[in-house]
């Protein structure tokens, strides 16, 4: 199995989630993160003091899937998250050796 990790713009979360639903993806886990990259951050000013913020809010999605679904999931996420503007984010894939569903103890594909 694979773990697909996608870091995308927060307001794209709905779109990605809906697209994955269509694919029949049963679940995913989301984390609010801060991204650093080409997209520059911003400056904040409090009482005349300037603070530089080089990070940009992003959401990070984790999706565990069966190997064969990997390509379509990858394409779907990329398509749904794309705005064509800098800072759209990255998606990467990591191998998964085992998955367990806590409730039932099922393992492997059945756990998804």
């Amino acid at each position, binding site marked *: 199995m694979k773990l697909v990790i996608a870091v995308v713009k927060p307001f794209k979360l709905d779109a990605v989630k809906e697209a994955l639903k269509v694919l029949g993806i049963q679940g995913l886990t989301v984390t609010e993160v801060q991204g650093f990259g080409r997209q520059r951050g911003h400056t904040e000013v409090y009482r005349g003091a*300037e*603070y530089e913020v*080089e990070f940009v809010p992003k959401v990070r999605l984790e999706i565990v899937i069966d190997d064969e679904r990997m390509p379509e999931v990858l394409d779907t996420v990329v398509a749904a998250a794309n705005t064509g503007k800098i800072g759209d984010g990255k998606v990467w894939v990591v191998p998964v050796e085992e998955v367990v569903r806590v409730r039932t103890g099922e393992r492997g594909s059945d756990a998804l």
Partner: protein
Amino acid sequence: MYIPYPHWLNPGDNTWQIVAATLVGLMSLPGIAVLYGGLVQKKWAVNTMLMAFSGFSLVLIVWVLWAFNLSFGVPYHTGIGGDHSFFNNMIGHFHPAVSHFAEQNQEVLPEGTLIPFHYNQATFMYFQVVFAAITPLLFLGSVLGRMKFKAWCLFVPLWITCVYSVNAFLIWGGGFLAQKGAVDYSGGYVIHLAAGVTGFVAAWVVGPRLARDRRHGVPNNLLMVSVGAGILWLGWNGFNGGDPFYAGADATSAVLNTNLATAAALLTWMFMDMFFSRQKKATFLGAINGMIVGLVTITPGAGFVNGYGAILEGLIASAIVWVAWNYLSKVRPFSKVDDALGVVYTHGIAGLCGCLLVGFFADPGMIEYIGLGKAAPGFSVVGLFYSGSWHQVWEQFLAAAWVIVFTAIASFILLWIVKLLIGLREPDENLEIGDLAVHDEEAYPEETFAERVGSSVAGSSEAIGT
């Protein structure tokens, strides 16, 4: 030999008037600032609060320099028609009121008052300015999350000068509508109905918030809403209690009535949510809506109705506005205009209800000023339920019609002027970001990812660890 005040000044009345004014001031700052600041989406909280603080400040300056005398000064005679014509009784003279005479001399209204004031003009001016200042803050609720900050700073002074002053003079300054017999105990027309109408028109002219914001725009802090709401409720004791202008029996009756109507309205909304809403649950923000409806509704009649009237007014208005909020909002034009916090319902419709209900519930037994001799028993208002006559209802209706039509048209024109001069909307790229784009500040700054630019760390060696 020295004395603390002239014979005409009564320290009790003067104290009540200035304390009442201070309570009303607190309704704006921090009241409305944090009520709206907590209700708006997190990304717009700073912008909302700054508009509240700056709006309040702008009105103060404009007020003493000219708007006070436009509202309460010597009538300006346009010369159109006779002495009692509308056009000779619609606005006061243009004149500042900041000299030591203006501040320390006894307050006198040009058309005379039933009883000479017991305090100086500064007291009266300050009491009146906190009313004027809260009005733009009320309709601010309609245009949150997209109005250009500079446009706000220009629109507020224009609106106070051209709209508020006219309504105030006509109804409170002894103008035409007052002469006709419409009554407004403390701002049902001049403040709430006008704010509701202006907010709705402004929301329409400025255009809606980003679709994205409307789809995700939940409030950010209900405890802050609670702070603002509580101050609003109790501050209203000054709002309505201050309007007889003397610390008499009618003033405190108005305070009690204000609280009764508010309690009734809060509970009505809450129970309607519990029994008629889709979720069948009481909600905190629903209760707060009901509370505001009660406060607004009783405003035009707080000292004219008795306790029963107050409770019933709160109950009726809350039920009406609850229905409007949940159903009328689905039909045009309401469904098409993005009135962010629904000011047109909680102030517009609630204010209208209150203005009309006075015509029904006003109890002649509620004496605002005691009359001696043939003036006995004194000044009071008689509603339909006591007189059987529709007269007062009709007068109230006419005044309402005027305020709605005039305020809508005048606000529309002023908005267009501002639009042509500097534009009304923030550009979309700012709307996407919110406070950070418009003010370089956010409501709850996060320190982990922020680093001071060129911070001198002089005099302190960096400590390490944890």
